């Protein structure tokens, strides 16, 4: 009964948030900000512990894994683009993921953040379903990682267009990959405003970023974690 209630209310609030955002597309009205906020207030108001809500809605979170599998569809549909630009995609996204991990690491050390925050922040520039998995594997806190991923997406979709403009980036591949790499799904949403090609490259950038970060999660990140713990 509770399961149906919480899944239903989550879905309704999500639909409502999407409608609001469509009407007023302002960054702070992003559905990923206002629907969790509304739910937090709601469960506090009816005195439901967060863990009970999370247990009731685990089926919704479960769909993240299934959605990751479904990303095979856009890759398959654009396989000719992948083949044609494979070198560029791999090199640009490898650069992007390295810069993401190293800059987050350097900045968080300089800010003296506690190790838990540092670990949870490292996988933040990739799409949530994979970021949660990477965070678990490297010993971060998945809920914190989720929030950091959401922040990254929202910031990236605001900053991205300025970066593209200031750097006079004109090719659809560079625009799309930057948005997909920097702001995953939220960036891809933004890329649609540029055009179909940008959106395709953004989707591909997002998927490759996830894959390459999984690789770093098993090589570079554990080394950096050792450094954090010895400091």
């Amino acid at each position, binding site marked *: 009964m509770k399961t149906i209630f919480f899944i239903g209310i989550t879905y309704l609030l999500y639909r409502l948030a999407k409608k609001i955002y469509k009407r007023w597309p302002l960054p702070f009205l992003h559905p990923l900000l206002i629907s969790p906020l509304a739910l*937090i207030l709601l469960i506090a108001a009816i005195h439901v512990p967060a863990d009970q809500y999370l247990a009731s809605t685990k089926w919704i979170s479960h769909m993240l894994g299934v959605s990751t599998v479904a990303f095979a569809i856009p890759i398959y549909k654009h396989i000719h683009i992948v083949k044609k630009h494979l070198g560029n995609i791999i090199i640009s996204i490898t650069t992007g993921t390295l810069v993401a991990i190293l800059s987050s690491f350097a900045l968080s050390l300089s800010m003296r953040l506690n190790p838990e925050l540092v670990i949870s922040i490292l996988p933040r520039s990739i799409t949530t379903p994979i970021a949660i998995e990477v965070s678990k594997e490297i010993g971060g806190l998945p809920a914190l990682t989720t929030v950091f991923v959401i922040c990254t997406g929202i910031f990236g979709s605001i900053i991205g267009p300025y970066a593209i403009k200031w750097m006079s980036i004109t090719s659809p591949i560079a625009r799309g990959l930057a948005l997909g790499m*920097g702001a995953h799904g939220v960036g891809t949403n933004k890329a649609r405003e540029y055009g179909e090609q940008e959106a395709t490259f953004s989707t591909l950038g997002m998927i490759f970023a996830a894959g390459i970060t999984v690789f770093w999660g098993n090589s570079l990140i554990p080394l950096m974690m050792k450094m954090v713990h010895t400091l």
Partner: protein
Amino acid sequence: MKLGIIILQIGFIHLFLFLGAAIKNFIPVPVPASMIGLLLLLIALLLKIVKLEWIEQGGNWLLAELLLFFIPSAVGIVNYDEIFSLQGAESVLLIGVSTFIVMGATAFTAEKMYNRKHRETE
């Protein structure tokens, strides 16, 4: 009718998630099960073992409603006091700065490579 097709196709996509989990069970690869499932589905599509029509409607629904699936994990944040501290605010600032650098570096690399390839073919 359409809802039925979507549910059926999502069920079918699950098969690849379970296959990914099964493989991870036998061979301890440090890759998420969903990522293995993605690769398996892509291979099945490319080898024409699975037809796009079998999964397209369900898959597109999943990708279109992706934001919904993040919501419970985001609500889970209330369990962590860390985020509501000065360090939490600093983390948010860090993310803004780092994301800008990441996008700049990615766009720069991709644009340079694109221009070089373009010049060669001209």
